[in-house]
Structure formats: C-alpha cells, structure tokens
C-alpha cells in the first residue's frame, strides 16, 4: 500500500509550512553558527575569558652589615578601605568599627564620605595593615571593601635616604638607586588569561588559557654599610650643630675597590613620608648632583701631577713671597707668613696657592703656565682623574661638572693657575673622592660603585662584576710620595686628633662661593679630604659643610667630622696599629 497526501489537503499545507519553518531555522542557524561564528566566539570569550595581571614584586634593596646583607628597603602589603555608600546599611556601625580599628589610617570626615549616596565608591582609609583589615572584615560590614596594594617600607627609617630614593604612587622609582635601577627592580608582571566562573575564579576549561608567571624584580645589595652610614650621618649631624652649618655631605669609600661605604647628606628626609617633604631639594644627593669649586683639596692633585711628571719632588723648593703673578693677575696665599725658600711639602702643609702655581709653571717652561703645561694639567685632571665627567655611579641625577679645556678660549693661564688650587672648575664630591683613592692606593682609579651585587631568595649575596678600573693613573712611586706628603700635611698640625699608630692623612679645603658672578668672602664652603688605614689605605672620607651667608672653614668645621668618622672607622674595621 502506498501512502500519499491528497492534493490541497490541510496536512499537505501543514507539512509545507513546517518545511518552510525548518528551512528558516536552518538558514538562521547557518547565519549564526557559520557566518557569524567568529563574532559570537569573540563575544563569548570576552564574557568568559578574563585576563588577570599577576603583579611582579619590586626587588628589595639591601645594605651591608659587615659581610652580611641586611634589608634596607622592603615591600609590605597594605590595604585601601573603601565603601559603597548605596550599599552601606548601618553607617553608625561602620564608623564605630573603622574608627576603633584603624583610626590613624582614616580620611577626615568619613561620615560625609559614607553619606554620599549618589556615589558607589569612596575611599575612607589608606595603608591599613593586614591585621587591621582582617579585624574589620570579621565584623562583616555591608558595603565595606578592601583593595590590596604593595608599598615600600624602610626598617632603618631615613638611613641613606638620598642614596635610596623612593617609589612614587605610580610605582616608579624616583631619585637614587630606585630611579637609576628601576628597570632591574621593577620586574615584569605576569598574565593569567583563563575562563572564569561568575565570581571570577579561573577554570581550566577551554583552550585559550595563558599562565605566564610574574618575574619579580632583582634584589639589589648596596655597598653601603649600614653601620658606617649610620655613624657618618650621626657625625655629620653633630658637626653641623657645632658649626651652625645648614648643609653638609659626607662620603666614605674604599680606595682599594671604589665601593661607597656611606653617603650622607643633611638636610635629609624619610622616604616613607616623601609626600610630606616641602623642599624637593632634600631628595637630591649633593655628593653626586652638586658640582662646586672644591678649593684647596685639589692641591693634592696638583702636587700629584707635578710629582708624576717629575716637575717637583716633596723637597723641591721655591721662593714664596705670598703672592705670584700670572699674566695680569696677582694670586695671593690665604695663609701668609711662610715666606722665603720653602719646600713643596711646606706649601702643601700650609695650603699655599703660590706653591701650586709654581708647580703649574714647572710643568711648562718654569716661569709661565704654557699651553703645554695646561694640556698636561688637563690630561691629568680630566683624562686620568676623570674630573668633569660622570663617574657612572648607579644613582640618578649625577652631574658631570665642568672643567675647561686648554684649547678653549677660556682655558687660559689665569684659569689654569686657579685650577691648581681648586677654583675655576666645578667638580662633584664623588669625582674628587674617587680620584683621591687613586692618588694614595698606588695609582689605580676604581670607578665608584654603590652596587655590591644581587641577593637571591635565600638571602645569599651574589657579588656584582667589578667595575672597570684604570691602573697607572699616576705611577706607584708618585703615589707613594704623595701618600707620605698628605700624611705629613695632616700630621704636622692635627696628629694629636688621630689614634696613634695608624696611617691617617688629609687636606683641608675652604672654597669661596660665587654670588652674582663674583667670588664673595662672606660665604665659604668648608671641606676635608682624607684617608686612613694600617699597612695600606682602607678608607677615604670627604666632608663638605656649607650654609647661606656662613664662613665655614675646612680645618675648623669640616675636619672635626672627618676625624670623628676616621677614628670610629679604625675601630669598626678592626685595623691594627703599625709598629
């Protein structure tokens, strides 16, 4: 039997309608699933697949405690507390609880913030500790939430503040090592891209999951020794109080490696409260950022140049009349009375400008500071001692200073005569201290560094590769002679200040300052540059004190700070007396 629809029957019409409807469904499904496939997959992925950033931890900064690295800058998780005013049902309870638990972290007028019913997000507290956040969470306050964030903490307070710098609200390092090594410290955020459920929990379904772990920043160990740094800051503060100076800086270096053991500046600040600093100049590190005319400290370099070139010996003599003529200018001594035939050692002891100009003349034809003499001085000062150029220390904001070439129109004999006693050029303390290390260590210039290495997760120090050094800056023989001369220069007047049996030497400096383009006599900068050690120099210390309208002297105001730190260093480094 064969079944067939009757022509024009309702069943046939219904069948036809169903067929048409099925055709429409098929067409629509074809459109949605085939033609618009990619669009809808993308929409679904946007809804279900959530990219979550895995934040990298910023690297820690360590100082040294002898040979052991200790944490100087750390990270701590803190919480920002916010409310959704529309969700808060019991504002009185919210205020009572948060005031009781986190009163010091609350914003003023939180009652008004909570009452802003036309908003959905109001921050009412910042930098809450984990314990505070947990206590508040336990109260199950409706409409109160927490946002986790990381902040820098400083267990040693403001120690070495300008060397460290700080991290701003955007997470970028500012000033100091934080800015200079920001790329190494910051690390790289990771990415977790995954299908999530409605509450955002990542699920391991789907084939679009990405799990790229975060790479934390490097933990950097500084060469700064926290004990030396703390003592240098203390000694500097005491020295400023004695002299009534308003600004001061100290650098302590190892002349055998170029490692900076301490770098102290006043006024200073606490990096944890950098937002409260009113004068932003407190962020600067004048040891590297403030070139100035270093004054008589430079006489050690002039003598070193003369010794190395064979132009003078420590017992070479000249006739001192307390003044000397250079072209149309007359240069006089600050210390008068040592007239007659005197040695270069005496000229250094009494810091006589005439002696230094004589050295410069003997580098030329013996009577004039010729172009050859100026080129020799420039070669030593700029090329060998690296004056007037950045040292490459790993800190932000280093300035190169200025030293005029003899081939420049301004590089004439008068300028170079001034340069022999520290005027007519602008140098930073880091340049002077680093080069001084080369003068007394046998003639090797070590580039200054504040980075000792990196610290792994177990707290083990991995030393950094040594920075480039240059030997033969001056000969070992010249270095030995200068070493003895600088020791004698200090011992002649100040031996009683030093612990007996140790090798301590130094040179005072009192620099005139320039106001409105002219040297003024009522405002001077006091400096002292020296070293100490046992069988070999173990530390170089440079001190600078200054203040607006103050006459500060190298021997009276800066040297006592050097002496204080030097005597302490001898004990700290456990140096044994000679003989």
């Amino acid at each position, binding site marked *: 039997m064969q079944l067939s629809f009757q022509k024009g029957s309702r069943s046939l019409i219904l069948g036809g309608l169903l067929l048409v409807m099925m055709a429409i469904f098929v067409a629509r499904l074809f459109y949605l699933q085939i033609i618009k496939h990619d669009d809808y997959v993308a929409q679904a992925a946007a809804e279900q697949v959530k990219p979550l950033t895995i934040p990298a931890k910023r690297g820690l900064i360590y100082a040294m405690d002898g040979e052991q690295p*200790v944490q100087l800058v750390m990270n*701590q998780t803190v919480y920002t507390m916010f409310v959704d005013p529309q969700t808060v049902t019991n504002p009185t309870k919210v205020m009572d609880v948060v005031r009781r638990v986190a009163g010091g972290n609350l914003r003023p007028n939180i009652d008004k913030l909570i009452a802003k019913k036309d908003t959905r997000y109001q921050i009412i507290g910042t930098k809450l500790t984990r314990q505070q956040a947990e206590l508040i969470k336990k109260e199950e306050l409706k409409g109160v939430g927490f946002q986790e964030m990381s902040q820098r903490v400083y267990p040693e307070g403001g120690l070495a503040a300008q060397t460290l710098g700080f991290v701003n609200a955007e997470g970028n390092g500012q000033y100091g090592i934080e800015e200079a090594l920001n790329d190494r410290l910051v690390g790289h955020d990771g990415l977790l891209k995954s299908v999530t*459920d409605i509450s955002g929990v990542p*699920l391991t*379904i789907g084939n679009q999951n990405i799990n790229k772990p975060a790479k934390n920043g490097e933990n950097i160990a500084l060469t700064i020794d926290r004990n030396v740094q*703390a003592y240098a800051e203390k000694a500097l503060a005491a020295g400023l109080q004695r002299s009534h100076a308003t600004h001061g800086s100290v650098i302590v270096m190892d002349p055998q490696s170029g490692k900076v053991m301490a770098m102290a500046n006043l006024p200073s600040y606490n990096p944890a409260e950098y937002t409260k600093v009113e004068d932003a100049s407190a962020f600067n590190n004048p040891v590297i950022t403030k070139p100035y005319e270093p004054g008589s400290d430079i006489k050690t370099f002039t003598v070193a140049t003369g010794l190395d070139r064979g132009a003078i010996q420590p017992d070479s003599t000249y006739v001192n009349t307390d003044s000397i003529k250079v072209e149309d200018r007359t240069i006089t001594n600050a210390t008068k009375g040592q007239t007659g035939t005197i040695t270069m050692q005496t000229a250094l002891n009494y810091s006589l400008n005439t002696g230094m100009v004589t050295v410069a003349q003997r580098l030329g034809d013996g009577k004039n500071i010729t172009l050859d003499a100026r080129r020799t001085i420039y070669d030593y000062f700029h090329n060998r001692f690296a004056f007037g150029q950045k040292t490459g220390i790993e800190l932000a904001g280093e300035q190169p200073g200025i030293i005029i070439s003899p081939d420049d129109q301004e590089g004439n004999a008068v300028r170079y005569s001034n340069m022999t006693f520290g005027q007519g050029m602008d140098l930073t303390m880091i340049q002077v201290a680093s080069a001084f290390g080369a003068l007394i260590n046998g003639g090797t210039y070590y580039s200054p560094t504040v980075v000792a290495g990196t610290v792994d997760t177990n707290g083990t120090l991995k030393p950094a590769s040594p920075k480039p050094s240059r030997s033969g800056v001056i000969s070992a023989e010249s270095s030995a002679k200068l070493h003895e001369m600088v020791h004698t220069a200090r011992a002649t007047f100040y031996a009683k200040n030093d612990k007996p049996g140790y090798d301590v030497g130094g040179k005072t400096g009192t620099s005139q300052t320039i106001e409105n383009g002219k040297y003024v006599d009522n405002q001077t900068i006091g400096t002292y540059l020296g070293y100490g050690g046992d069988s070999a120099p173990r530390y170089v210390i440079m001190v600078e004190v200054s203040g607006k309208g103050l006459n500060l002297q190298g021997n009276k105001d800066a040297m006592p700070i050097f002496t204080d730190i030097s005597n302490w260093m001898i004990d700290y480094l456990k140096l044994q007396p000679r003989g």
Partner: protein
Amino acid sequence: MSYQTTSQFYSSRRQTNWNRNQNTVAFVSSVKLGPVAHTVLIALMITVLGLVYLTQATRATGYDYEAQKIDSQIAELSTKKGDLEVENARLTALENVQNSNVAKAMTTPAATDYVR
C-alpha cells in the same frame, strides 16, 4: 529485492576465494535488531558518553576551586611571612638595637690589645 545470507556468502567465498589463515567459520547471531533498536542504542551511547564528559568536566572544575582555595591560602601565608620579615627587620634595625637595654648597658673598653 533479495539478500544473500551470511552463510551463503561465506560458502560461495570458500569455494571461490579460499586463502590460508582466513576465517572459515562466521558467527551469526540469532538476535536480530531492527532499525528502531539501533537508533535507541546509539542515542543511549551518546547520552552515556555525554554524561561521562559532563562528570569529568565538573570534576575538573571542582579541582579549579580547590586550586583557587590553595592559591588564596598561599597568598595569605605569603603576606603574613612578608609582614613578619618586615617586623623582624624593624626589630633588628640599628636604632632599635642601639636603644635596647643590652646596648645601653655596654661600656667602652678602657684599653685594646692586639694579637700580632
């Protein structure tokens, strides 16, 4: 339309295309399944396989929640560890050590001798 039975097929095959190691006996089931039964069986198999898939997928998702819970615990413990490290560093900071009773009780040695 006519069909050749299996036995007839093999019989003729044996006669015409016999080869070594070739089965010469075939099992012929006495149970005959019709097209409806086949459809039902296939539907059942698909359902069972679907259930197996769903079970496994749900179980994997359950692991995700466990993993998430453990991750949260790790993060919390890590935060606590960080807090303790900060506290330790604060307690051993120079200023705290210098102000401690032990440090205050210390005296400067009157003389120092050196072993040579």
